């Protein structure tokens, strides 16, 4: 298992962003669904070793990220696209991807080839030498994806990767996800249910910091059967049904 989480929590002051999540997953594309504020980004940031858990057990790629040496090794094999990709406006596409390839400790000799491959894979070959400040939001998102995959990560964490992409780019991106998921664990946080249906072999649904569903997209769709859940597509109806059930259970407890 590349990701092993047990009873993981994260608090920010009095707010509990992640409340006792337990999860294990290996290679494949894993969709993380949930409404805004469900705790998806906090969970992803913990997996990216950007913030530590408040409590619980976390192992990534068979290593403990709480210890310096293993954490550095994890980070070498990690790709991360934050929800808000910060970038240096004066850098070109290639300079930006190359900079983070070097910070990922890639051997310098391998960097130019890896950068070219990553930039081409996200379809930005013709913008390789363009300054980031001249790119559209969708192109910047693709630059972020390029830096995330430049080191051929074994664990790829993508927070809202399709935000800003046009429909054609989203279709291409889902194909890229499926390809990457053959060898790596790809965790995609999104609130776009169609992304999950098209690219993910497993899906988890979070609400109020808790994991309220874990299964296949087919199993999520099946949750809508016999309910009057709202949604335009079967998967959306399954999503709504699970959320409604989770919320009524929580309300009954309180």
């Amino acid at each position: 298992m590349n990701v092993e989480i047990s009873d993981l929590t994260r608090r920010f002051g009095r707010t509990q962003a992640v409340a006792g999540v337990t999860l294990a997953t290996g290679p494949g594309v894993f969709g993380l669904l949930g409404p805004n504020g469900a705790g998806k980004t906090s969970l992803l940031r913990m997996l990216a070793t950007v913030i530590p858990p408040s409590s619980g057990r976390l192992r990534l790629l068979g290593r403990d990220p709480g210890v310096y040496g293993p954490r550095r090794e994890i980070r070498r094999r990690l790709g991360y696209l934050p929800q808000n990709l910060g970038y240096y406006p004066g850098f070109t596409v290639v300079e930006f991807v190359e900079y983070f390839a070097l910070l990922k400790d890639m051997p310098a000799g391998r960097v130019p080839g890896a950068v070219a491959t990553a930039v081409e894979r996200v379809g930005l070959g013709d913008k390789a030498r363009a300054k980031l400040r001249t790119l559209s939001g969708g192109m910047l998102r693709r630059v972020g994806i390029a830096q995330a995959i430049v080191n051929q990560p074994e664990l790829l964490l993508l927070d809202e990767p399709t935000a800003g992409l046009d429909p054609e780019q989203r279709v291409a991106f889902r194909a890229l996800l499926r390809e990457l998921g053959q060898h790596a664990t790809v965790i995609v946080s999104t609130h776009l249910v169609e992304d999950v249906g098209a690219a993910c072999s497993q899906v988890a649904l979070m609400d109020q910091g808790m994991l309220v569903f874990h299964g296949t997209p087919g199993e999520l769709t099946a949750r809508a059967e016999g309910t009057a859940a709202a949604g335009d597509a079967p998967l959306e109806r399954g999503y709504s049904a699970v959320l409604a059930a989770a919320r009524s259970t929580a309300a009954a407890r309180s």
Partner: protein
Amino acid sequence: MSDPDARRDGLAASPGGRQDAVPSDVDLGRVWLGVAAQVWRRQPSWLERAAGRLLRSPGLARALVTTPSLLIGWITATLVVLVAGILATLGTGTPFVALLAPAVAAAGIAYAYGPGIDPAWELSGSMAVSDRMVLLVRALAVFGLNAALGLAASAASGAAAAVTFGWLVPMTAVCALALAAATLARSANVGVAAGLAGWAITVLAAQAANGRFTAAVTDSALVVPYLAFAAGCGAIVAYATRIPRGTS
């Protein structure tokens, strides 16, 4: 999101538009990527190559050469601080500048690269090369440049020399010490501790050089200012390098 094969098709097309000019066993997608890698690659400068060898990390070397200390805004700010320091020293005849300037400079670095300021802070926090090491490298670059400018100004003004030798050169040395310690120990925390210790030694050594060492270490009136200064430096370093527990 594109396939290099599309480029391959472009490469495969002969001037006459025939697609059969390339042997079938040649992977032109791979060829294109090789070409792109060579065309797009940025040749590191001699400074970056030397820094990469010295720091044992091409990533840190790239952080060094891309630091804003080498940009016009920072150079202008450095000159303003230097001139203000000279005027303050001349006007008051007190060593306030020597005491305050390092803290001001350190705060400047902290705020220039801290969370919410550095656009790629979140991303940097997930990198194998510790962002604390990157910060140390950048601090060294900033103080190094400041010291060089101060040395140049010293040729024209005694007050500039006082400011330069009073804190710019020592701070450069302190940063270099911190970076060396961090590089050897592979721990930015060790480097920061070494730097703070080095700065304390530098201040006391300066007092000794002026024949005031005994007063500097025995005058109880100075204990509180020393502690306050050390606490200030510690707080600035803690803020500048703060990463939540367990992540670096």
